[in-house]
């Protein structure tokens, strides 16, 4: 009993330390970190808007981050919302815009006018193709999709989103298919720790990234829905 208590207290102490550390960051470098924070977020938005008018190619460096370890490192060292003094956790649309390896996806989502749909949903599971994944899409396919934001682009992106529940990789491993946001069928298979989606089109590389309203799995390829194949 008392050992439990000690463990609990240690746990609380640990949590408290984390909390203090997180807050301490901001207090120490008040103006400096705030400025960066503000700049970061506005930059991201501006970049996004700029890119939507130009072509949607991701910066070369993030497209070259392809293997799992590099992805994890990039995500962890990227502009971390946790270091900002947020009042709330970001929903997935906003959170993705802070993710350094999802710049093309964010552009595409904004181009398709899906930011609110992603942000306002109560619960979602999102398969997020990385910039590396997008770099493997033939340029003409990407252009064709971007030229038809409400048609092809929406059905491609909608095929990457499951509405209504936040499914972890573990949940997914026990499933064989899911209905996507746009009503198509997404096949799922699992072998060991590896989850494959879209009938073998993509593999989950970094699972279980939590945002306020969605669980995000980074995948290594952009999937085409049956309707677009």
């Amino acid at each position: 009993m008392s050992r439990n208590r000690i463990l609990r207290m240690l746990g609380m102490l640990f949590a408290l330390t984390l909390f203090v550390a997180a807050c301490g960051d901001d207090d120490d470098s008040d103006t400096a970190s705030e400025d960066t924070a503000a700049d970061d977020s506005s930059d991201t938005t501006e970049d996004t808007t700029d890119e939507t008018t130009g072509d949607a190619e991701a910066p070369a460096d993030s497209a070259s981050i392809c293997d799992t370890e590099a992805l994890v490192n990039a995500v962890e060292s990227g502009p971390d919302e946790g270091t900002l003094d947020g009042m709330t956790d970001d929903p997935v649309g906003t959170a993705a815009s802070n993710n350094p390896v999802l710049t093309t996806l964010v552009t595409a989502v904004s181009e398709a006018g899906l930011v609110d749909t992603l942000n306002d949903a109560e619960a979602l599971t999102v398969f997020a193709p990385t910039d590396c994944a997008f770099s493997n899409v033939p340029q003409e396919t990407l252009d064709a999709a971007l030229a038809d934001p409400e048609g092809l682009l929406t059905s491609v992106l909608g095929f990457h989103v499951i509405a209504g529940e936040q499914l972890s990789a573990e949940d997914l491993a026990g499933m064989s298919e899911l209905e996507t946001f746009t009503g198509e069928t997404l096949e799922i298979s699992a072998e060991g720790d590896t989850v494959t989606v879209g009938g073998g089109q993509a593999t989950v590389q970094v699972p279980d990234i939590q945002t306020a309203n969605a669980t995000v799995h980074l995948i290594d390829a952009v999937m085409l829905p049956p309707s677009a194949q």
Partner: protein
Amino acid sequence: MPTDHTLHRGPASLGFLAAAAAALGVGELAAGAVESWRSPVQAVAETFIDRAPEPVTKFGIETFGTNDKAALVIGILVTIALVAPLVGRFAATRRLIAPVGFGVFGAVGLFASADGASLLHGIPSVVAALAGFGIWQVLVRLSAAESTASDASVLDRRRFLLGATSFVAVGAVAASAGRALRRRFSAVASRAAVMLPGAKDPLPPAPASASFDVDGLASLYTPNRDFYRIDTALTVPQVPAEDWTLRLHGMVDEPYEIDFDELLSMGLVERDITLTCVSNEVGGELVGNARWLGVPLRDVLDRAGVADDADQIVGRAVDGYTCGFPVEAAYDREAIVAVGMNGEPLPLSHGFPARLVTPGLYGYVSATKWLTEIELTRFDTFEQYWVPRGYSEMAPIKTMSRIDVPSTGETLEPGETTLAGVAWSQPQGISKVEVKIDDQAFAEAELAEALNENTWRQWRFPWTATEGNHRITVRATDGDGNVQTEERAPIRPDGATGWQELLVVVRGSSS
């Protein structure tokens, strides 16, 4: 025959009862020391409720209604009152009975308090048991003279009785002190006991025309339990109304401090105000409407007299959080120090016993919960909580419209349907809401009657849904004729903007 250090059965029963009663009092007092420590009686009662077979608890609820817990506590006390004298009778002749009796008492309390968590929660039970045994020993000694005296002296008996009753009295004082101490851990009892007077000039009930009956549409008044909660408090501050004060100070002619009753006596008004969080995403849920009861902020300020050069009102919470907004906002709109929300005292998580509510300004600059100080100051000398954290000093609410129906991710059947939502632009009000389907032109939606300019307004729009993916866009126009901006802005530093766009999938059930 009683030997040395034992009692006659009669006094023994009485003495044991007194020791047990005093022990319970000590237990209550100890429970007042640390929040996680539990009162033995309360712990046993709660464990009983948790563990008792369902028919028993059902009987309790059916018989005693909402007083079932009080009835259970009384039941436990009565049980102790019946058992203690009995134990005392045997303790009079057998030395082991008293320690065993208090041991059992302590152990029951200890395990009920721990209840699978930590034994430390049961410290008050152990302290109570030790105290009870100690008191019993003292009483035994007190009576030693009585039993050894050849002729049972009335004086000694009196001394014993006096001792026993004093311990009971000390126990009672300890118990009430313990209960008082525990109040600092919870304001639940205080909130339950608060009786708010009505408003001088109550608002009429909202007209039926202010609401549309559409499934999934945000209700005109947001129920308290569904009302959004964004604050910096890790745990909800517990502020009993009876311990609460409001201090007016800073750049004022006459600083003052009043308690809760004095605040209420300043005269209450009712106001319908939609509260909005700066962190609300386009289409988000961090907005809610309530009927607030409170004292006009301008009355609270005028009582102190605001200095001419003060330009910022700072509302400080018991935990040190501060909001800050222009002094004019107290005079050009219906800002209040609120004590009631939708017909009840403020819920603890919404700032009991008092908070600020200011129409037209985002909550982070204008709506301090658990309010305890209002300081008049200047923007150039004081920065409120969120300002050094990247948010703007000035935060007027931006015009916004939201689609509630259909909900995001909901698939519609083709055919006639109703789109619906809410729009807000405090304090200008909403004059128009328009809806755009795909690439068609914006068309005007029907608006429900406005309660006032400080609340949101419901809208609805009939739509014949056709199979496929559709994009629905909504925008509002405020009371001054300004159309909601289409330009996207992030939440930081002063609130998101943009027209909400929703992807709606329409699919026949056959496909």
